[in-house]
């Protein structure tokens, strides 16, 4: 088996709510090899989103370690986590989270701009846009796109900088079954064709079935 792309050991996260400490993660251990499509399932409050936020550099860990490609990200500064988000991870959210004032093309271009890669997508990425089925919809603003189209634009934006990891948080949570299947098909295609490592949070067993492997979380830990 290859070296894990993501190596998590004893990961802890405690949120301070008023004067009360609320543990969200209580010692998570997880290895994800490169190119894996991993589904993470579990009830609300089990710590799935917190795990994502730490892997994605949106918040620091309280304890333990997270190594991505050998780099320990648990001790990164705010600026270090910004660099991580810029270069190593791409996010897909349940609510699509496209910038409403920009066209689909500009939503993708701004991710490249922020990463300092210019605005024009690489010729090879045109194929990915065709695979996503949005090549003809790029000049539309999000309000003119269906939910499924918006989510596919969000996927394009998330992978345009070739991140090591695509983090998808309930990517089908706001979609009907037809669009859900289309988005999951696209993600599976990306995983197969580009060997894109994908971590997907979902409540939906049918969605989880698209992944190579499913891990279950409960009470801030990986359930065995």
């Amino acid at each position, binding site marked *: 088996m290859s070296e894990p792309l993501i190596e998590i050991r004893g990961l802890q996260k405690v949120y301070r709510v008023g004067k009360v400490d609320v543990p969200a993660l209580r010692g998570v251990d997880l290895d994800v090899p490169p190119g894996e499509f991993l589904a993470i399932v579990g009830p609300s409050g089990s710590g799935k989103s917190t795990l994502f936020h730490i892997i994605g550099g*949106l918040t620091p860990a309280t304890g333990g370690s997270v190594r991505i490609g050998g780099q320990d990200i648990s001790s990164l500064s705010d600026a270090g986590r*910004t*660099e991580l*988000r810029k270069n190593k991870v791409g996010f897909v959210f349940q609510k699509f*989270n496209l910038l409403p004032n920009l066209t689909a093309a500009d939503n993708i271009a701004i*991710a490249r*701009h922020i990463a300092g890669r210019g605005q024009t997508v690489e010729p090879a990425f045109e194929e990915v846009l065709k695979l996503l089925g949005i090549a003809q919809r790029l000049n539309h603003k999000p309000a003119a796109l269906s939910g499924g189209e918006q989510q596919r634009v969000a996927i394009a934006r998330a992978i345009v900088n070739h991140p090591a990891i695509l983090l998808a948080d309930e990517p089908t949570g706001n979609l009907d079954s037809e669009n859900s299947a289309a988005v999951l098909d696209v993600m599976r295609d990306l995983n197969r064709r580009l060997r894109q490592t994908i971590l997907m949070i979902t409540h939906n067993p049918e969605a989880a079935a698209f992944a190579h492997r499913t891990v279950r979380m409960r009470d801030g830990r990986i359930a065995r």
Partner: protein
Amino acid sequence: MTARLVLENLKHKPMRSLLSMFLIAVPVTLILCLVGLSQGMLADSARRARGIGADIMVRPPGTSVLTLSGAPIPEKLVDVIQQQPHVALAIGMIVHPVTSVTFVNGIDLPRFNQMSGGFKYLEGGPFQGPDDLIVDEYYARQHKLHAGEYATDVLNRRWRVTGIAEGGKLAHLSVPMRTLQDLTGNTGKVSQIFVKANRPADIPVVMTELKTLLGPAYNFYTMEEFTSLLTVENVQGGALSTFIDVMVGIGVVIGFAVVLLSMYMAVLQRTREIGILKALGASRWFILKIILAEAVVMGLGGTVVGIGLSFVARWLIESLYPASLTQAITPLWWPIVGGISLAGVLLGALYPGLSAAAQDPIEALAYE
């Protein structure tokens, strides 16, 4: 890309953007109008003084370039000055205020015509009697007067308008000197004396002669010197200059407050978008840059609108009060008000920008 994001953000809420620009434009217009009025009225005074055709102006003790009250100079001094060897012509004139910005001149019309070349009449002609009045085209337009009509709002007296003259000489109103002297209790006295030398080269000699003749208490100005002293800095011992500085300060404060509120609202409305940008890897500086760039665009837009409104203000003033106020257009002040606006908007955008840059991405993404 940043520019497109900024422009799209501004276009997304057009009313907010336009209203902010308009509010930024208000102090810009105020400053430009104030400076324009100051410079315009002083330039108008200088033009009118030059229109008299004199080389030297003699003013009584206790006066300055911009202050002249009463008529303390004995009229016989005019004849004494006239006798000086290098003097071609000397005329006395009495000046009396009608309103705070409008004056009436009492003139000896034949001698004034000799010095200035005479009025150019657009309607009517010179005085024919003691109660006659010549008004310039601006006063006539503002007060809707025509030759042959009567004016009753000058010194509580009924005057017959004998002529409407082209502007640019003396005050807006001229009456016979003797009438104004008697009317104001200054019989035999004048407010100032204008002197024309035989040749321009004689002006320094005449100045010396006059100083010797009248003594140091009187004020003597060559016309060139007099007009050069008509500056904003000289008005009321620099009070106008200070007033303009205060208005500039108010402009900065208004620009600051408008943009602070506008950008604070924008940051609140765009909390989720800021979270998205942060999730994409945008740095604090990137977020701050977008907020500041939006403010700069609004500041520049507000400056342009404000400059445009200053032209509208001038048109209104020229239409409504042509004889009372003269507003100059002051292009040299455009970059200054632009700088003032930018200073105000950058200060105003700084706090919202910094708070946006410091937002927690998870909280921002969860914002509804």
